[in-house]
């Protein structure tokens, strides 16, 4: 076994040192009645060639991975420079633990400090942590933090435009707290209904809003900020598609208390749902109430600049039951991938990729709207994702399009029960004009 270096001779030397006859003697501390008296019923062992063949067969059973995809809804494909994987594959990064010993972890620590800087910048906030498990859990942790910061909060108002998975995660996280959860409805335009929202908000509420929302529509953050401010509600934002931050004013400029986002689209593959990373940022005044790891600047004995984990007194290993969160491992390597990705893109690259993603969506929107039987139900502005009303169940369209090697979008009723004739379509800079025209052609075949 290639990962077990012990020779028979090594084992006898070691047992001799210990004064034991056999390895079984080392398990004498386990009562005999609790020992497993049989082999585990597991397959293997497999050699590397056998294993590769088996993995290839599993891959072949995932033909969706090689389709031209217009799927988004919380997981986004963008162009990732090869340099990203080259860096995160360096095992000095990938095989290290959480940087508890700063003198042998400066690589991880400095990169997290840079990640915090970039994340805070993107979201327009003062400080960001070293990442959360994913966007949904980051949003849920923001709600827990709201309750810590303001004990008086009794009600959580969730926008109906939140990705249903995010809303469900928040509900699960807060289930042990005595909080009322209500949903603020969307208007026919596809964005929050300000009148209904206004009635739901007061100083005892925390509001969670997603923009662009899960229908792809860009919320009127200015009015929402005005409402939240006027009612003195705790204001939390969530961004599912972080490329939108390249063209939209960041949540920080609308005075949110906490800004959260799903960071996957920056440098991490969609990978059937994970690993992703949650972005979490807030203002300076709340820094000691934040969940998660933080890296701070310091000096060594000779006065040289270096980095350490800091403000650990918030965390579970020090504060135990009174910690701000129980999070320990976060998504370190995914955060590194995001950082490397964003450094490669720079301000110009990120903006260009975002503009192309958006332009492709507008091109498709215009093209599809002209197909008889299809229409665009929501009038609000969108970024790279939008809903189409389809003449047949969206799921049937998906089944048909896959025969042409195209995944045309996510049927809306897969995300939330409801109208089965709606399809959520997403574009990026990976799509060529030909891809867009092909999708239009395939949908045209089903036009009334």
């Amino acid at each position, binding site marked *: 076994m290639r990962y077990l*270096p012990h020779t028979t001779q090594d084992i006898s030397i070691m047992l001799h040192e210990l004064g034991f006859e056999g390895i079984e003697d080392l398990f004498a501390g386990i009562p005999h009645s609790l020992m497993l008296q049989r082999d585990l019923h597991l397959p293997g062992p497999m050699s590397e060639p056998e294993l590769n063949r088996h993995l290839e067969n599993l891959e072949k059973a995932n033909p969706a*991975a090689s389709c031209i995809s217009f799927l988004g809804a919380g997981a986004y494909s963008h162009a990732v420079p090869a340099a990203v994987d080259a860096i995160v594959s360096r095992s000095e990064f990938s095989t*290290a633990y959480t940087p508890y010993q700063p003198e042998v972890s400066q690589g991880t620590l400095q990169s997290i400090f840079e990640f915090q800087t970039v994340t805070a910048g993107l979201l327009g906030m003062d400080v960001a942590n070293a990442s959360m498990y994913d966007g949904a859990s980051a949003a849920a942790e923001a709600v827990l933090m709201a309750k810590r910061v303001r004990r008086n909060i009794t009600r959580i108002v969730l926008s109906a435009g939140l990705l249903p998975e995010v809303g469900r*995660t928040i509900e699960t996280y807060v289930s042990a707290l005595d909080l009322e959860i209500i949903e603020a409805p969307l208007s026919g335009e596809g964005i929050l209904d300000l009148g209904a929202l206004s009635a739901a908000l007061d100083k005892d509420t925390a509001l969670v809003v997603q923009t662009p929302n899960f229908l792809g529509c860009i919320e009127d953050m200015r009015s929402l900020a005005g409402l939240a401010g006027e009612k003195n509600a705790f204001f939390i934002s969530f961004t599912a598609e972080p490329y939108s931050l390249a063209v939209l004013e960041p949540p920080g400029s609308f005075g949110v208390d906490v800004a959260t986002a799903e960071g996957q689209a920056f440098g991490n593959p969609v990978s059937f749902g994970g690993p992703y990373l949650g972005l979490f940022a807030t203002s300076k005044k709340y820094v000691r109430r934040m969940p998660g790891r933080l890296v701070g600047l310091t000096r060594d004995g000779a006065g040289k600049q270096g980095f350490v984990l800091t403000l650990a007194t918030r965390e579970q290993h020090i504060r135990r039951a009174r910690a701000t969160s129980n999070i320990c491992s976060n998504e370190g390597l995914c955060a590194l991938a995001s950082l490397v990705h964003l450094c490669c893109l720079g301000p110009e690259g990120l903006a260009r990729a975002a*503009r192309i993603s958006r332009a492709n969506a507008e091109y498709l929107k215009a093209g599809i709207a002209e197909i008889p039987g299809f229409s665009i139900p929501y009038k609000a502005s969108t970024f790279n994702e939008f809903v189409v009303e389809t003449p047949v169940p969206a799921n049937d369209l998906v089944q048909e399009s896959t025969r042409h090697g195209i995944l045309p979008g996510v049927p809306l009723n897969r995300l939330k029960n409801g109208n089965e004739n709606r399809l959520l379509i997403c574009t990026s800079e990976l799509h060529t004009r030909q891809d867009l025209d092909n999708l239009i052609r395939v949908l045209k075949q089903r036009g009334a």
Partner: protein
Amino acid sequence: MAKVPGTKGLNLDESLIFERSRKGRTGFSLPVEDQDLREISTSHVPAPLERKDGLDFLPSVSEVDVVRHFTRLSSWNYGVDSGMYPLGSCTMKYNPKISEAAARRPGFANLHPLAPESLSQGALQLMYELQQFLAEIGGFAAVTLQPAAGAHGELTGIKMVRAFHLDVHGRPRKKVIIPDTAHGTNPASSALNGYEVVEISSGDDGVLHAEQVREAMDEEVAALMLTNPNTLGLFEEHIAEIAGIVHEKGGLLYCDGANMNALLGKARPGDMGVDVLQFNLHKTFSTPHGGGGPGSGPVGVGKVLEPYLPVPVVTHKGDRYHLDNDRPKSVGKMRSFFGNFGVMVRAYTYLLEMGPAGLTRAAELAVLNANYVKSRLEKYYHLPYKKICMHECVLSDKMQKANGVKTIDIAKRLIDLGFHPPTIYFPLVVDGAMMIEPTETESLESLESFVSAMKQIAKEAKTDPGIVKSAPHNTRLSRLDETLAARNPVLTWSKHD
């Protein structure tokens, strides 16, 4: 004495990436914008919502800059691939390269979580089988793969416990009992679920005794949370009796599975009366820690908790795999989608390569290595619990303190000699603890080299304590000032700093 690997070497300095930035430099290669479409892309954002800062917080750098910057940073890190990393309770074993290649296969990496199930059967099969493998290893009825890390698994497990009590007893109950040797995540996970934490102490022999549990146990206790083997590296030998006491009062037994590496194929928590346990795929099943994640913390449960698993669960009917969301008693969702799939692929690959005999051998050699290190060092360092240990052993600085040398100094001196330090000052029940977990992937030579380093430090503590107290000497930076960092936190870079 075996040689130690530590030495001095050329180490390149590197500023922050932002300081490399030069206007006009780029590191991307993207399609040129279609001019017909460009108009569209700028005209539709409502003007007050348009971003105006020019994204100036991002550096403008070439790909060469980026790659050199991060390559230099990487050289300041110590990983398992650099050498022995005996960080107790973290199971820093070697991470197979085939697992890395497996997770990067395009058929996995490019698969969207909302692709039709019929076109994602390979991924669903992998998840289904991994659920089955973990259930068999732990002795459980069912497994959820959703949690993203060990602590996330704990949170999920205790949430299921809460849902069970609400459902069966009509109320969640109020308390969770946790021994003083527990990881800090245990009390935090319980508190986040609204439970009051009752701490009980383990006996003088380092394990929990039935009497202590009986005394603390009543019908307000939702669960007892223990770690087995515990953080002293000792098997909780009274676990079956303890499970009986907890169950008698209607409570559930939670086991923190961080230390499962000692038990693979030897004993199963489910057979000991454990109702719920989180696995740490990034420990026991050899997926890399990534400098702090991504991990994966699947939770195994007995029959009583199965209805409360988070959604979805992967099921198998006929020849199809399916995501089952129709589970009315489910606690809900702990995150988006199905969990850290890329980490699951790595653990699955590892399990198949090892096979049942290989896994059992891994546990045996992990225990052999820990006992060997303990035996070789007990003359030089205080050993608070003189028993056979499981996968890790705990020493302390009691003998070195006389010369003013503390655990932190020993840890930093180990860095000079080429090793990652053990977990220090944990568990809290041992003053100045050093928790050493060599794992099964270290050879006899590597253990001997570590022993040499530890012996050298024990000697230096007597003859030249100053060199230990001022360590590390061979690293690029000397000891860092953590108080300074916390007093006036600087958490982001800005041009004016």
